[in-house]
């Protein structure tokens, strides 16, 4: 049998459609890649996969039968990692789970089960970090606004957290890397895409955009942060391990804003 490369739209339903087609047509899969990415397999045939809802639902239903809810979450989180080639590993794990009787999702001695759980762990960690490191700034029109640039696509999985926590304030979290945000308007949270002004910045606050007093709270927070440090116990290695440098620019307590 000749192996094929599946090209899909990059969405999770798109991936599930790939799984459906692979089983239905008994394909041997060499690669599963999102649109816009080049395939590595030179001599494989490429098939375009069009996302179809009934296929998505069928695969979802059967996956949820075969996987525990934790197992399904791990699979979904690993997808959000956007690690090149993760789709094939997911597919490999799905095949292993379908072909086994027992709860194979817990077989950590199987390579793709282990890889998926590692990717999911990385995504879970960044989800948690974003819930911690997001810093809202209050805009003039009473919106709590934050920008992020996470390594993984965690926006879909942090929405619930912020929605239940900040139910009584309007907020917007914008992922600069993926040019996509989530806006909560006191009723519902929805995806938005928009152009941001160049000088919106990461911390600090241009008085054209931000509420009076906003900058003071950032200063108070930085002040608080500095006062809690015990100098005779400084351990920068530990500090950086907890707060990786790539996140510093978003943290008002770390950034040298004016």
């Amino acid at each position, binding site marked *: 049998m000749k192996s094929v490369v599946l090209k899909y739209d990059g969405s999770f339903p798109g991936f599930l459609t790939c799984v459906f087609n692979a089983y239905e047509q008994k394909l041997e899969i060499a690669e599963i890649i999102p649109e816009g990415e080049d395939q590595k397999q030179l001599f494989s045939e490429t098939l375009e996969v069009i996302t179809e809802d009934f296929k998505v639902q069928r695969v979802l239903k059967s996956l949820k039968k075969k996987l525990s809810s934790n197992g399904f979450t791990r699979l979904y989180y690993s997808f959000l990692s956007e690690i090149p080639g993760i789709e094939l590993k997911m597919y490999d794990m799905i095949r292993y789970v379908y072909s086994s009787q027992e709860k194979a999702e817990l077989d950590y001695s199987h390579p793709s089960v282990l890889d998926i759980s590692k990717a999911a762990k990385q995504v879970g960690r960044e989800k948690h970090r974003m819930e911690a490191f997001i*810093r809202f700034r209050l805009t003039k029109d009473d919106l709590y606004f934050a920008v992020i640039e996470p390594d993984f696509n965690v926006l879909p999985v942090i929405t619930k957290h912020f929605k239940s926590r900040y139910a009584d304030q309007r907020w917007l979290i914008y992922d600069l890397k993926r040019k996509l945000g989530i806006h909560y308007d*006191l009723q519902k949270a929805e995806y938005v895409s928009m152009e941001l002004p160049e000088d919106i910045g990461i911390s600090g606050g241009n008085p054209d955009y931000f509420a009076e007093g906003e900058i003071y*709270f950032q200063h108070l927070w930085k*002040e608080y942060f500095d*006062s809690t440090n015990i*100098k005779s116990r400084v351990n920068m290695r*530990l500090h950086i391990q907890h707060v990786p440098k790539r996140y510093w620019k978003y*943290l008002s307590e770390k950034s040298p804003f004016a």
Partner: protein
Amino acid sequence: MDFDRIKEKLNILADAAKYDVSCSSSGSKRTNTKKGLGDSSGMGICHSYTQDGRCVSLLKILLTNHCIFDCAYCVTRKSNDIKRAAFKVQEVVDLTISFYRRNYIEGLFLSSGIFKSPDHTMERLIRVAKKLREEENFNGYIHLKSIPGASDELMREAGLYADRLSVNIEIPTKSGLKLLAPEKKHEDFMKPMEKVKNEIIQYKSESKLIKSTPKYAPAGQSTQMIVGATGESDRDIMYSSAFFYKNYNMKRVYYSGYVPISNDPRLPALGTQVPMMRENRLYQTDWLMRFYGYDVRELLNNDFQHLEMDIDPKLSYALRNRHLFPVDINKVDKQLLLRVPGIGLKSVNKILQARKFRKLNWEHLQKIGISMNRAKYFITCDAREKELKDVSSENLKQLIMQNSFSKYRKEFTQQLSLF
């Protein structure tokens, strides 16, 4: 808001509160139901970390650093010549809400120096919490410090608004307390603990019958002990902890390496190093008691009063109990698997799951993420080659230490460096 004045107060009152180690914001059940602000239903979140590596999860401040007591170990003691300040109740409420809305914090940790009387102080702390809950509809985390000597009625009220209550025992032995805080009585610490424990028990039994019973300190109570200020042994410290866990249903005991803050002949001199390694070993021991099923007497006893600083307490235990090992990874029960050095809780669960599918060998174990350089001497698995087992415990310890890259290793190396 007068920002400059608030800023000054915040500096003084955050600085004075920083020696309290507790920072946890987890374990409470307070969901945001009525579209209010905040939610503390899940696990806690560390929003930042100080340069000394500690988590910043709560706005941790004192209401005031005025104090009528003169405890030798405390920065806020009466005789210390420092700047004093006091927050107004409303100022603390506003700061908490503004920080929370910006996602800086999980909530508030409010402690205080004792001004006028214990009851007067406690009553102020409660007013802050009550305002946050009732006027601001705030469901974030609130940790209130129980003031030693506060009345039972106030302790009861405090628990209705706070997620956690704590009273710091500070000095692990009665004799030490007498020496360093002669005005305070051991009973003053125990009484509020007893009250809180009983209220929690009562709440739990009532809420089973009546769903609407108001929550009482849902995240339980904790305490803190200063380590290395008096001459107590590790055994003294951990036996105190075991006592608190057992008799007061304590959620957490914190250990705080003493940071010298004054030239008092009763205390280690200024400039004495903070016993961070010791603190770390005590936490590890605490973990072994709470999560790994060890009895405190297995870890410390009359023959073994001090933890080893150069190796972790689990390895230390295993080296003192070689007759239990090696264990077969593919057969041994969970309780003993938990005692293998280099295998943590999560790896234990992975091993238990994975071995249902096949016999595990060295490679599987490595990939699962166990620390082979320690574990390999205490286990057998599905493999031909055997690790050396007939070495003495002392030699084995040297061998493991030579092959480990602990960040503390340089402090314990016996070889002199050439440069």
